[in-house]
């Protein structure tokens, strides 16, 4: 009997482990095959609410943000911005769910896979295409025509209608582009105090860049034990790496990361396999060998890589116009400026200036579910956002700052559920001039006024606004824009259609293969000639197919 009970215990334990182990399989299947049952309830959250004919309700999903600080007593459920939309345009906003930045994208995918869409939400280009093909989202052509104000229509076609075109399938408008200004260029950021200390010239060519980084490493003006020349993080070629990336480095060699460029015969070719890339990689390998690049960059994310910048270990980094907002963490300590940074255009390998690569200015779209009861409410939100973001009245400042209507760093604008940005701006022409001459009269947009105000605070001694001066001030990140713009000295992706069938199928493999080869060459694990093998393989693995499809699209859309 005693033995029997023990045997029972052991068996129970074993069985429970066994079942747990077997369970893994089913769980995986469960993840990739979400049940379709919740579809029935999808529409219910958008309760009619129209009994009075005044307030309509639209549901969405939102991304929470650590920088969003709610006023006392406010929350995602109830806040002054949602109240303002309800009061001003009669649209009540509800959230089906809220997720933080790490979870949001995954949750959107699951929401799509389980056919549980809110009335409207933001999706990426691939999802837009998926959803259109799956017939889950609404054709907005007529809705937009009818409800969008003239201001809205003008606002979203500032770039000549390119961005709207990317959301149009067979003549049907399927999403509202979450637009931004694509004409923003990466720059090189260098420790100017170190340049001065070591008596070095400003880096104008890629050779200068290597010379400066060698000097920074050898003479070690930061006095640290760990020093490198150029800060790099683990996804250097990804568009999402705004600081510590290497796309701008490629651009310095007239090479570009995965965009479609002229082949010289009226067709398009992919930039990833061009010979210029090989040169750039050889240069990176050389820098790696000389110890100018952190040998551990492949396992460091941006924040970790940036620690070496904060810490006086590295004095040079490529980055987007907002890079100073990242650098400020190390540059200003206890209210004192301890590091001096300067902004420079991307150096070039030869006499031709480098052309920064840019996209179309839209990566994401707002789509409306086919089951939405009040799609017009979404367009009303759009109209209102454009009004309050660009020329708010005193009352409408609530949309930017909350009920107090004053800037207090709480980032209340994040609560606006549908946001589009300007497709063009003249910040680079206006701001540096205005700030240099302290002339507020030439400022045109709300954005410029905000930036001017912050830069002036810095001029008046508020060091916490150091970054804004480096972005908007004279010789700041914006200041090089107009010159590039005027000379059309940028490289814009010539393909802006929906992902082609082979792209959907193969792009991931190609990108992965590419990263593998690029990394190995950079880290000197294989010879740079491996690049030629990669080009052949790229073509065979579907690259040729994609090139064909892209060119078909190009000849139809030229």
């Amino acid at each position, binding site marked *: 009997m005693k*033995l029997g009970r*023990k*045997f029972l*215990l*052991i068996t129970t*334990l*074993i069985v*429970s*482990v*066994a*079942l747990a*182990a*077997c*369970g*893994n*399989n*089913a*769980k*995986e*299947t*469960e*993840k*990739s*095959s*979400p*049940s*379709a049952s919740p*579809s029935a309830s999808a529409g219910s959250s958008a309760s009619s609410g129209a009994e009075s004919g005044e307030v309509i309700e639209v549901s969405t999903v939102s991304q929470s943000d650590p920088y969003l600080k709610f006023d006392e007593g406010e929350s995602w459920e109830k806040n002054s911005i949602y109240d303002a939309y309800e009061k001003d345009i009669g649209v009540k906003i509800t959230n089906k769910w809220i997720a933080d930045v790490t979870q949001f994208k*995954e949750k959107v*995918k*699951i929401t*799509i*896979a*389980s*056919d549980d869409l809110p009335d409207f939400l933001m999706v990426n280009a*691939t*999802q837009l295409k*998926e959803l259109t*093909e*799956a*017939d*889950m989202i609404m054709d907005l052509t007529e809705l937009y025509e009818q409800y969008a104000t003239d201001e809205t229509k003008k606002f979203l076609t500032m770039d000549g209608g390119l961005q709207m075109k990317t959301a149009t399938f067979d003549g049907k408008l399927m999403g509202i582009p979450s637009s931004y200004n694509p004409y923003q260029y990466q720059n090189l950021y260098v420790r100017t105090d170190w340049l001065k200390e070591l008596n070095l010239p400003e880096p104008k060519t890629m050779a200068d860049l290597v010379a400066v980084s060698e000097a920074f490493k050898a003479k070690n003006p930061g006095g640290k034990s760990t020093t490198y020349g150029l800060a790099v993080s*683990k996804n250097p070629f990804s568009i999402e790496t705004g600081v510590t990336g290497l796309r701008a480095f490629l651009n310095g060699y007239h090479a570009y990361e995965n965009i479609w460029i002229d082949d010289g015969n009226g067709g398009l070719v992919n930039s990833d396999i061009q010979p210029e890339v090989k040169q750039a990689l050889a240069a990176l390998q050389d820098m790696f060998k000389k110890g100018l690049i952190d*040998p*551990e960059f*492949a*396992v460091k994310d941006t924040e970790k890589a940036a620690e070496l910048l904060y810490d006086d270990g590295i004095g040079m980094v490529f980055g987007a116009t907002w890079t100073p907002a990242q650098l400020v963490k190390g540059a200003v300590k206890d209210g004192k400026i301890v590091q001096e940074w300067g902004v420079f255009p991307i150096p070039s390998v030869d006499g031709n200036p480098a052309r920064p690569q840019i996209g179309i200015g839209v990566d994401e779209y707002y789509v409306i579910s*086919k089951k939405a009861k009040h799609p017009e409410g979404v367009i009303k939100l759009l109209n209102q956002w454009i009004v309050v973001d660009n020329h708010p009245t005193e009352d409408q400042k609530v949309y930017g700052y909350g009920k107090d209507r004053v800037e207090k760093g709480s980032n209340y604008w994040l609560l606006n559920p549908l946001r589009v940005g300007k497709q063009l701006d003249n910040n680079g022409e206006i701001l540096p001039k205005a700030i240099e001459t302290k002339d507020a009269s030439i400022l045109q947009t709300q954005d410029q006024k905000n930036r001017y105000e912050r830069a002036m605070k810095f001029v008046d001694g508020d060091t916490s606004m150091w970054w804004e001066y480096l972005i908007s001030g004279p010789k700041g990140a914006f200041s090089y824009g107009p010159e590039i713009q005027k000379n059309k000295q940028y490289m814009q992706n010539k393909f802006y259609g929906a992902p082609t069938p082979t792209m*959907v199928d193969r792009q*991931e*493999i190609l990108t*992965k293969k590419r*990263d*593998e080869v*690029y*990394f*190995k060459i950079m*880290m000197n*694990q294989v010879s740079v000639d491996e690049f030629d093998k990669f080009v052949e393989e790229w073509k065979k*693995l579907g690259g040729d197919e994609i090139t064909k499809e892209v060119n078909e699209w190009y000849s139809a859309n030229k």
Partner: protein
Amino acid sequence: MDKTAFGRRFVRDFLTNKYLYAMMIPVIAYYLIFQYTPMYGVLIAFKNYVPAKGILGSPWVGLDHFQAFFDSYYFLRVLSNTIIISVYSLLFEFPAPIILALMINEVRSRRYKKFVQTVTYMPYFISMIVIAGLIRDFTDSGGVINTLYSYFGGDGTSMLQHAGLFRPIYILSEIWQKIGWESIIYLAALMGIDQDQYEAARIDGAGRLKQIWYVTLPGILPTIVILFILRVGNLLNVGFEKIILLYNPITYETADVISSFVYRKGLLEFNWSYSTSVGVFNSVINLTLLVLANWLSRKVTKNSLW
């Protein structure tokens, strides 16, 4: 044994053990709701799943997705990586808790025993994200392991940047995380061994090693065999979480496994049907291996699951 006899025995058994049966209800409910119900989703492996049409409404495509998987560029790589990692874990990770249990069993001091047990099964309760963070710190250039490793000729860079080190790191950390937890079953089995046998062995002049070899090990052999069979039945399941948290372009060639491939295909690229078919492929292989291992074990050791 006719049906009525079974029925009567079941009723009697039910009445005597009614609390045990009651305790089973949540477990059975769990499996019905979370494991069996979603199983009909397996259908989408043979369909072109479109969310708006639902599982039943999506069009059939037969074995197209399987074909695409077998033909895919990375098929051989992910398959061999998966098998290698699995075999390694069978070789190194599987015996580890047995050895730990045997060692704990030999310890005389109860308090020390409890202490070791608690310490070894603690890591099991840490979330995978944190574990991955710990591993990254440990294997960093300034990390503990690297500092030691550099005395023996390591080059001192982060170990996660060496394709050749990915598998050892994966297996060793797996052992570190699970050894305590997995030893619990063996410890329970050890308690079931009749103490008289030890006494008899001692009288026959067996030392402690001999006692372990001739009494303890045979005593827990059935447990070992059954766990081994189950393990074989999971050969192709290498969890994707830890892999995707630890790999990078430099280690893809040794680290990319079927489950991380499925994750990328399914969730990152919306090929739900495709990734499900890979999952089905996995399960079929696993089930086959399980049946094989069970059959073999029944022939050889007379121990088996059924």
